[in-house]
């Protein structure tokens, strides 16, 4: 399993990728800090601090973009400049691609965990159960990486795949009503209740921290179903495109 052993080097590469680090760690920290200071201790209609709601949504929202690093590394190593060299090596390139995906998921989980720790320690944001929050971050990271890879394998032009991944992230945030309130439309509501990973992830955290463990599980299961469907698509598209 020498392919899996390369995870160490992929991890080092990712940790030294300062632009990604800036976009997925520094920018959210700045935004969280600014929003937390502005929102202060103000409470919403349900009595939950608005800051808790906003910060949790922000952290989960940035997880939607975590897959970008996975798709970039898979593209660079197996479809672009390093393709010939890596294909000439005595290794299974599909397993190597899977290793990049694993590294990308772990990387995204680590960044998410840092953000959870930062918000909990500095701004006393209530995440409910920390392990549960970590599980949700793990599901979100996995889904994002898998979906980004599906985009990479589905289109021939990588730039289009990148744009699709941005549409996925921004689209889910938009539908979740984070930019502006969404109209009370049955289709949008149904999408947010059963499909939008951001809303599923938020609801599961919100339910668990307010004691609704069964509803929390339900949303976590829905999120897992999305992952399974996306993984199926990944296998279909990957089999066709992976060298």
């Amino acid at each position: 399993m020498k392919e899996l052993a390369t995870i160490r080097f992929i991890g080092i590469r990712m940790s030294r990728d300062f632009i990604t680090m800036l976009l997925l760690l520094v920018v959210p920290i700045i935004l969280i800090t600014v929003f937390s200071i502005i929102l202060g201790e103000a409470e919403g209609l349900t009595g939950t601090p608005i800051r808790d709601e906003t910060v949790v949504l922000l952290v989960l929202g940035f997880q939607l973009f975590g897959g970008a690093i996975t798709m970039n590394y898979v593209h660079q190593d197996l479809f672009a400049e390093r393709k010939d060299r890596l294909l000439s090596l005595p290794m299974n390139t599909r397993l190597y691609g899977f290793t990049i995906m694993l590294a990308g998921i772990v990387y995204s989980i680590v960044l998410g965990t840092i953000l959870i720790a930062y918000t909990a320690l500095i701004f006393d944001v209530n995440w409910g159960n920390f392990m549960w929050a970590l599980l949700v971050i793990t599901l979100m990271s996995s889904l994002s990486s898998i979906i980004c890879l599906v985009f990479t394998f589905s289109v021939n032009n990588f730039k289009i795949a990148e744009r699709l991944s941005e549409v996925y992230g921004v689209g889910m945030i938009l539908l979740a009503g984070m930019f502006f309130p969404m109209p009370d439309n049955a289709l949008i509501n149904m999408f947010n209740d059963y499909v939008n990973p951001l809303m599923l992830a938020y609801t599961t955290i919100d339910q668990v921290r307010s004691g609704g463990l069964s509803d929390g599980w339900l949303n976590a299961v829905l999120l897992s179903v999305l992952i399974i469907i996306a993984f199926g698509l990944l296998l279909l598209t990957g089999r066709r495109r992976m060298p």
Partner: protein
Amino acid sequence: MTIASIKGIVKRYKDQIALDYVDLDIHEGEILGLLGPNGAGKTTLIQCLMGIIPFDKGVIQLFGEEGAVFHHENKKKMGLVTQEITVFEELTAKENLEFFAGVYGLKGEEKKQRVKEALEFVGLSSKAKQSPNKFSGGMKRRLNIACALTHRPKLLIMDEPTVGIDPQSRNHILDAVRKLKEQGTTILYTTHYMEEVQSIATRVVIVDQGQVISEGTVDELIKNIQHEEKIFIDVNDVSTIPIERLRGLEGVKQVQVSGSVVQIISNAGAGNLDRALSIVKETSGVVGIQAEKPNLEDVFLTLTGKQLRDGEDDPS
């Protein structure tokens, strides 16, 4: 002994034929220079030989095997130095080599030792802990080569390893290639710089438009195209030169005078230099002498009708 053999390989990209029934043998211990302009099909040939891309027709034999030859054991015996610099910019030079050494199955102390040796070999020991993005173009090229050396391949394929670097780094790389040959590595060296091939290759294959158009040692290739020898003798007093005696020498086709220079054109292999010089010296002082021999550039020009550095980008 033949280490790799390509027989009748055809590779098409849609309507374009990149390789057109190419035959090529690589013998153990040699430096085979694969010479051709950009777009000749050199990189495509390498990609087929390494099993990176499939080909439409033909057979490749590797290390005595035929059929499904691109299995991991055979790949472990081969190394590829890519035309592009394909090192990981985020890893240090040492980490880059550790990555490749690990993929080739090296472990523990052996891996450490091979990484150290590879860094020494390309003269980057002092830069082991630096990231390649701080390296010059030549240093990056050397690291690019080292990545293909840690596992000590039997067959090293180098695809234009000196493109875009300074003469000092180029000489370093060419010396390294010679050293590798001395250590017993078989090398397929592709380039469009004929002076590199002339200086290091034991045998040369010239490709153009996806076809092998000639092969042999440099001397053999030159001999094949050499139809005449030209001797230029710069003299003090051209009016005293016995032109008719020069014309009477065996194999001389033409004698011309241009300014103070007497130009003697003979059949190839006539060996008239000494005789012509003696005749001229009898009547005049000699200021300078030049014998023009064809080089690989002339070979290429003769065989293809175009300059070596012409052409478009490789379709692959």
